[in-house]
């Protein structure tokens, strides 16, 4: 299967601190890849690098065959992104914000698409509320909708489930699993191991900016190894 994401010697430094230092990482089409790691391990920086939001200090990566150095805007045009902190502009309502994103993405049938997402994530009654006044959970729903409204084939999602209630969490998890079944690819950054264990097809563990493990989740299950124990052992050893 074709590689959707290919990373080669990707380094990001902030002053003296090396936040990310990945020698190699390949994600294939149809994978639901979970990037796991402790706080401050480099998960969010990796997502930002791969989506061209920040520039690498060294190295390059290709996302959907496009270099993150050469055309980051094209990458953001094609993929969907849910950032770690949900920060839609303060003074637009939820409905206006979805319209705003859809306009930037030059979509057709905007109203119909917005309607479908409000219905699916069950927040129609919040559509006229200012983004800044939305609860964190509703803001997360809104960010989920904006990331998938243009039907991308690849999505980067950073802790997208943390504030959602169990009913919507279930819906979102099912949506993501269905999405990869249909040929989509998900790059999922989280430190909630239970969710990763439940929905991911492949996992990568990152610590101090380095990928210290990558493999299919099936392998762990075969070895009857619990992800939590495996994760703690690996991070401690690293």
């Amino acid at each position, binding site marked *: 299967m074709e590689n959707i994401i290919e990373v080669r010697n990707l380094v990001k430094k902030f002053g003296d601190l090396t936040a990310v230092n990945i020698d190699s990482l390949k994600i294939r089409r149809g994978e639901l890849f979970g990037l796991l790691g402790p706080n401050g391990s480099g998960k969010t920086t990796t997502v930002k690098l791969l*989506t061209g*939001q*920040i*520039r690498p200090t060294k190295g390059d990566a290709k996302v959907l065959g496009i270099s993150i150095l050469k055309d980051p*805007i*094209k990458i*953001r*045009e094609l993929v969907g*992104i*849910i*950032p770690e*902190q949900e*920060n*839609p*502009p*303060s*003074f*637009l*309502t939820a*409905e*206006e914000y979805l*319209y*705003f*994103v859809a*306009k*930037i*993405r030059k979509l057709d049938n905007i109203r119909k698409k917005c309607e479908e997402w409000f219905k699916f994530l069950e927040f129609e009654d*919040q*559509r*006229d*509320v*200012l983004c800044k*006044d*939305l609860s964190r959970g509703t803001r997360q729903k809104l960010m989920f909708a904006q990331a998938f409204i243009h039907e991308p084939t690849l999505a980067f999602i950073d802790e997208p489930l943390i504030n959602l209630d169990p009913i919507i969490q279930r819906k979102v998890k099912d949506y993501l699993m269905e999405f990869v079944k249909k040929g989509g690819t998900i790059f999922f950054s989280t430190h909630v191991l239970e969710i990763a264990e439940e929905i991911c097809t492949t996992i990568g563990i990152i610590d101090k900016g380095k990928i210290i493990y990558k493999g299919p989740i099936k392998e762990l299950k075969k070895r009857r190894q619990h992800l939590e124990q495996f994760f703690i052992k690996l991070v401690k050893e690293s």
Partner: protein
Amino acid sequence: MFEIFWNMMKEEWRIHSSIFGNFMFALFPIVLLFFSFAGSLVIPIFIEILPLKQVILIAHYSFVLLGLSVGSFGLLGREAMNRRFGHASLIAYSSRNLPISDKRILLNFYVKDIVYYFLLWILPFVFGFAIASQIISVDISYALLFLITLTLSFLIGLSISFFLSTVYVHSLKLLIAIILSLITLNTFFTIYLKIDILALLPPLVFFYNRSVFQVFLSLLIIFVLSGLSILFMKVEYTEKKRRFKDRLEDLSNRFKFSNYSVFIAKDFLDLDRSEGGVGKIIFSFLFPIAIIWVMLYFFLKFVPVNYLIIFSILLGVISSSVYNWLTEFDLFTSYSFLPVKVSTVMKSKIHSYAMINLVSIFILFLLAIWRNELNYFAPALLTLISISFYTLSITIYLTGLYPNVLLYNAKIFLIYVISISPILLVMIFLSMLDPSILFISLTLLLPSFHILRKSYEKWEEWEQPSF
């Protein structure tokens, strides 16, 4: 009590210095000191054109103006901090989760602002003058006198602004009524009683007659206005959900002539729905314009220049502050995960800027009619547009999407002043020769466009900060 104050001071310092470093922020008062020193050196030349009395009057009202702008920033500008740091992260918001009353917090905050701006602005200004006074042979005691009177002027401006913004929070109608009454009173004193009301500013009177009563009067004004403001201050942490009818599509369709219609529509909604709304426009745009209008009225009695033209030059500079509001509501982090370039956001802001600045053109037009100087309207208009775009291009080149933060960087502020002031001086000089020459100001548009192009390249290359 003192602990809250001291921690607020540390907090204020760290907010600024964390953005551009301790050293660069510490340089800001030194740059001011230098400007004050250089400005004071030319006083002997200046008083050849303008009576010394007018120079002193302008110095005092400049500090009233500074106080007015700081006071409104202190109350309305909180919103910007709010978005950057969140409700709970500043001490100013700690009454929510600590056993401290809002009023106590506010009092500390107010005193902190006074001390902070005294150290940052007033002291360097007076120091600069004190050093220069030794060269231009002015008695050093005047520096001490200035320290007292300029501080009082600043505090009067600050307390007026604080009071008016408190009134505004309660009722816009009451604010308008107070402002209209003040204008009427001023007109009555000036036109009917022939009393020069500007000369009655207590610190200014004290400067001449050293009467302790004037200091007492100044302090009375400051304490009464500040006391009333703190007493009636309305502190609201809005937990309610504000709902609005969807207007983005409608507005965006109205701006279809621009490629950035949806961004412009968003800018207009931001301005309309953000706290302060109309008040923000009154305090940071119309208020300074009104004061400059009045000051020019007195200043130009003695200088042979055209009122409309000079006003258009200053209006051009002030109108560039519109860009500061437009960027205040928008952090690039809201766009960084979308297919949007930094330059796209900048260009959209320029379009919004041009549209909002139609207000400046309207003000200039009204003034031309009022002064019966319509024959100078064309050169004044071109001057306004050219200066406004030139100042905007310099602001964008130096600060990108962050003028509200980066203009406090001493180095950037210095370059900003150096890039703009010579152009203003040349314009003023040309207007003294013949106002019609100012058609030439159109040539400023060429470098402005060039600077803007360079700005897009420069800021596209930068990793966007999150402040």
